[in-house]
């Protein structure tokens, strides 16, 4: 039974096929409206994540399927002490596919090992969130018409941001990708990402703390939130936080065809004034996320 725990569980060829399917869904939604008729998606959310859960549910409804599930651990058998393995076995008797969010890293892997139906990891702690990366990839593809030969800037919290690590991992499989890693010293990309992904794949990269000095080089700017609690001192946070806020002024020196992405939710790292800029793609990313989840459900159900 095929499950998707990490973005690298999908080959670049499979991602290309899914992007093709996604584009077809966008152009011919009616063609897909009954593809999953009679099928049930179980959304097992052991921690709340309204956005991701609703995206999965909307995806399944748009495929003509049904949805069962829970949105927090307190309303599941986990509150009574049931293991993830047992939950996966039980839900396999009720549904055809599982989308699971869990606060512990590796929980989706345990579910996939024990379920007799496909499991999609909808986020396991700070570990993986492959469908967010699928949303990012479709957005980049739709904006640029390709997934190769471009300069991608990642800005903000590059240390703890799992979406950043996952997208770097996914992009490492395409040629001609140059990374510009923009973060305060405290939040630089962890060494294992640098060694095991970036250097191992001979990706060209450049690290800086200054967004304005590099923004003009970028084809994609992937923003993330710099959280107060990540800093060692309040002083340091106050000194640095504005450096990583994207404003219309900073965008003046950016390319006209820059695409600005953000996994959302945004707090203040992208000024609201940027939303009207045609280069802002973060709400398109939300739509693309739903479409890629549709493509993934279709793939895993063999529809």
């Amino acid at each position, binding site marked *: 039974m095929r499950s998707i725990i990490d973005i690298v569980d999908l080959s670049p060829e499979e991602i290309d096929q899914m992007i093709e399917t996604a584009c077809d869904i966008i152009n011919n939604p009616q063609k897909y409206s009954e593809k999953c008729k009679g099928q049930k998606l179980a959304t097992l959310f052991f921690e709340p994540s309204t956005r991701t859960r609703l995206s999965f549910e909307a995806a399944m409804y748009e495929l003509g399927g049904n949805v069962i599930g829970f949105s927090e651990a307190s309303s599941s058998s986990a509150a009574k002490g049931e*293991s*993830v*393995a047992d939950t996966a076995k039980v839900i396999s008797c009720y549904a055809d596919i599982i989308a699971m969010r*869990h*606060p*512990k*890293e*590796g*929980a989706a*892997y*345990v579910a996939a090992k024990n379920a007799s139906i496909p499991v999609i990891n909808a986020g*396991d*702690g*700070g*570990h993986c969130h492959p469908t967010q990366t699928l949303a990012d990839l479709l957005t980049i593809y739709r904006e640029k018409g390709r997934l190769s030969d471009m300069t991608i800037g990642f800005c903000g919290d590059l240390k703890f941001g799992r979406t950043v690590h996952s997208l770097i991992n996914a992009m490492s499989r395409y040629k001609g990708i140059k990374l510009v890693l923009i973060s305060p010293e405290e939040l630089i990309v962890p060494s*294992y990402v640098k060694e*095991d992904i970036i250097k191992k794949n001979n990706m060209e990269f450049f690290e800086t703390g200054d967004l304005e000095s590099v923004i003009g080089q970028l084809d994609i700017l992937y923003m993330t939130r710099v959280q107060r609690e990540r800093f060692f001192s309040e002083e340091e946070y106050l000194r640095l936080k504005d450096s990583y806020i994207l404003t219309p002024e900073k965008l003046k020196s950016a390319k006209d065809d820059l695409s600005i992405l953000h996994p959302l939710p945004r707090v203040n790292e992208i000024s609201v004034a940027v939303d009207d800029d045609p280069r802002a793609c973060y709400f398109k990313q939300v739509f693309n996320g739903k479409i890629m989840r549709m493509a993934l459900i279709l793939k895993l159900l063999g529809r």
Partner: protein
Amino acid sequence: MNIDSINNGFVIDHIEAGRGMKLYELLGLDKLDCSVAIIKNVHSNKMGKKDIIKIDADIPVNLDVIGYVDPSATVNIIKDGALVEKKSISMPEYLKNVIKCRNPRCITAVEQELDQVFKLTDREKKIYRCIYCESEA
């Protein structure tokens, strides 16, 4: 220093100096009631210094643990006072229930009935990662 030779059991030799105690712990040798000798910093022409462990009992030995701690160690099986077999050691692809994941956010931290499994992800750098959360051992 004189350590008696053993009759039936095994000798783990050529352990990198300083790794003998770790091997002693991970093999659970503290739980044995037979004679166990751990000799540290023995002079070695080849290695400079090495550790040696001798176990005077015919018990099964987990070669995966030895391969994880020091794949260059050697294991000699002794029967009736004579060397009967030399076991080859290599780094195991998987290591099951030998070490625990230290990541407090790992699923194994809360579901303790799960096997603790680590996978060799980089043979050159000897890196093992938890199969659940991918944290380094």
